[in-house]
């Protein structure tokens, strides 16, 4: 571990985060947007773990937060997919720009 510092991890996670944001902004399909959100969450996990490992190794707070983030991600995906599927059943389409029946 001598040659890898915390910066390495943070840069990887930053790149992942902004890739995720780019995906979230440009993809039209709801499922792909969900996938981008997963990327965002995952980059946060890397940050938590790296900070825990390098800066605060006395305790495991970072790991537990990462675990809770994973839990939340699972919850989010389950509910989001339930919504997407029932949406698809109603309007046969999951395009984020065209699903605007409830507008105004």
């Amino acid at each position, binding site marked *: 571990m001598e040659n890898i510092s915390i910066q390495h991890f943070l840069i990887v996670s930053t790149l992942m985060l902004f890739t995720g944001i*780019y995906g979230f902004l440009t993809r039209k399909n709801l*499922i792909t947007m969900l996938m981008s959100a997963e990327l965002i969450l*995952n980059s946060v996990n890397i940050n938590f*773990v790296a900070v825990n490992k390098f800066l605060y190794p006395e305790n495991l707070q970072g790991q537990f937060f990462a675990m809770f983030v994973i*839990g939340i991600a*699972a919850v989010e995906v389950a509910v989001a997919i339930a919504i997407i599927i029932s949406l698809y059943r109603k309007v046969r389409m999951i395009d984020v720009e065209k699903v605007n029946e409830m507008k105004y």
Partner: protein
Amino acid sequence: MEQIVFYILASMIVVFSVLTVTTRKILRGAVYLLTVLLATAGLFFLLNFNFLAAVQLTVYAGGIVVLIIFSIMLTSHVNEKLESTGNKKKFFSFIAVLAGALICISTILDYSFKEKSGIEIDTSMNKIGKDLLSYGDGGFVLPFEVISILLLAAMIGAIVLAKRETQN
């Protein structure tokens, strides 16, 4: 040795992240996402967070990606391509994201982190189990219980949402 592994994993993460958000075949996107998640688990293994890595594998690779693939199977067809986004939107998003990434990376490189090198981090199952169920300093029993309730609520919610309405 570890350095090599790290660079392999890091480049995998970056490359496949980009592929995930740019591919026009949706299921391939999911597979690229799976690769990113596996590589992240690899990073965790590298940092000696074995338990977290296994959680990542089980929940993300075994649960979330499978769910996503399921929903893709239900909502689209194999030789269907996603519509591409307008070039204007792509351009502006790219500029914004690039700016953000540059700012963050330059800040990270500027800042001097105070790494603690003396202490070896203890990620044994024993410690994880005890911390997760203790209420004292470094204990996480309350969020642990709260998240279990959240999971239950989400499960019920998902069932109610996705349940087919009865005919009549």
